[in-house]
């Protein structure tokens, strides 16, 4: 039904819940991400909540170049997030491993392990760049997300 679909689409757009996963990041991107929760940027004005459990989330934000020990965690958490879900690669590490490319303990860019929808470049990205990336992810989510 049209109106029900519109309602579902609107509610997905207005209520995106985040889960943040650190896949071996240096914490720079993580710090900039939680800066978005501070009063100056306040992502809650868009209805975004940083959730504690991947099962509660719609958007998975991954930082870090996926080390050997976090690879299993990334795969497990991705499987635990219920559909529809969107993956955001935060910073240049999940996009390309940045300075760590070629290292034997790095399992490679994030798209070798899980499908990625939005890339936010930066080392680390500014909080408003992160919010722009999350806004892109919300648009994908409201359009149906990836299954």
């Amino acid at each position, binding site marked *: 039904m049209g109106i029900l679909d519109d309602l579902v689409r609107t*509610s997905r757009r207005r*209520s995106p819940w985040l889960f943040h996963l650190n896949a071996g990041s240096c914490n720079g991107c993580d710090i900039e991400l939680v800066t978005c929760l501070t009063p100056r940027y306040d992502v809650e004005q868009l209805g975004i909540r940083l959730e504690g459990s991947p099962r*509660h989330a*719609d958007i998975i934000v991954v930082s870090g170049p996926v080390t050997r020990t976090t690879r299993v965690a990334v795969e497990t958490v991705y499987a635990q997030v*219920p559909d529809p879900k969107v993956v955001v690669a935060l910073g240049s590490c999940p996009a390309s491993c940045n300075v760590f490319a070629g290292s034997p303990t790095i399992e490679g860019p994030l798209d070798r392990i899980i499908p990625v929808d939005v890339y936010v470049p930066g080392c680390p990205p500014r909080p408003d760049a992160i919010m722009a990336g999350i806004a892109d992810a919300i648009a994908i989510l409201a359009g149906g997300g990836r299954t």
Partner: protein
Amino acid sequence: MTLGRALLQLLVFPGLLYAVPVAWLMLWIERKLTARLQGRIGPPFYQPFFDFVKLLAKRPLPRPPLQALAMSALPVLAVASTLGALALLPVFPHGGGFGGDLVLLVALLEVPPLCGVLAGFVSRSLYGELGATREAVLSIAYSLPFLAALVALAAAANSLSLSVISQQAMWQVRVPALIALALCLPVKLRVNPFSVANAEQEIYAGATTEFEGPRLALWELAHGLEWVALTGMWAVLAFPSADAPWPLRASLFVAISLLLVLAIATVAAATARLKLAQAARMYWLWGFAIGLIALVVAMVYP
């Protein structure tokens, strides 16, 4: 209480039709006030409604059958028992209650925390068990002042009927009992300073860690309905206006509930989280002391 009256109170006011939107309103007020006190904007007005619909539209992952049944049944039970507790509240006293409905109210209000504890264990997750254990310890702790206050009120009014208690308990007992009850509200609602049971940064999401989609939507709804039921219970026990016309009684009920929400939200925004031992000790000492005062006064006064 006739069947028609019971259905009216269960489904319309202060039951389902009133409680669900007001639950969302109270959740929004709490988040908005917290945001304002922290210098933020906070969520827009319809946020809890959109959260609910979005969760309903998630496609949950399959689980083993018995676990799926238990995980679906527990939030439904929590919602149903909270609605039942709401239906018992004597907003309109004449013909709306029965002798002994205080006992039923207490029993119904005990079910949501119990469901929460069971949910943590049935989800077979370490974080669920941690959250459930903390919730269980806290529920033992706050039951002492909670029940002491209610027993004191019942003893003062010489009856176990809620409508009689809300009209006839004398203020010397009512004041300490209400203070004890107000002290128990933050922990039952899992807000600061007693939010250790669902401590987000420590134990992920606590008892609801493994719940997703529609089941989580029902848990959030149960949480919102607990806000309505507990603040409504406090509001109903706070004013003895038996001869006021029913619109005035209804608006007073709603107004006092919302004021209580503002007070609880302010305290929650202004305090930090107490550790489990600190919170439990606070209820066993101070909470019980105030409850004891209410009991003693109730025994002393004829």
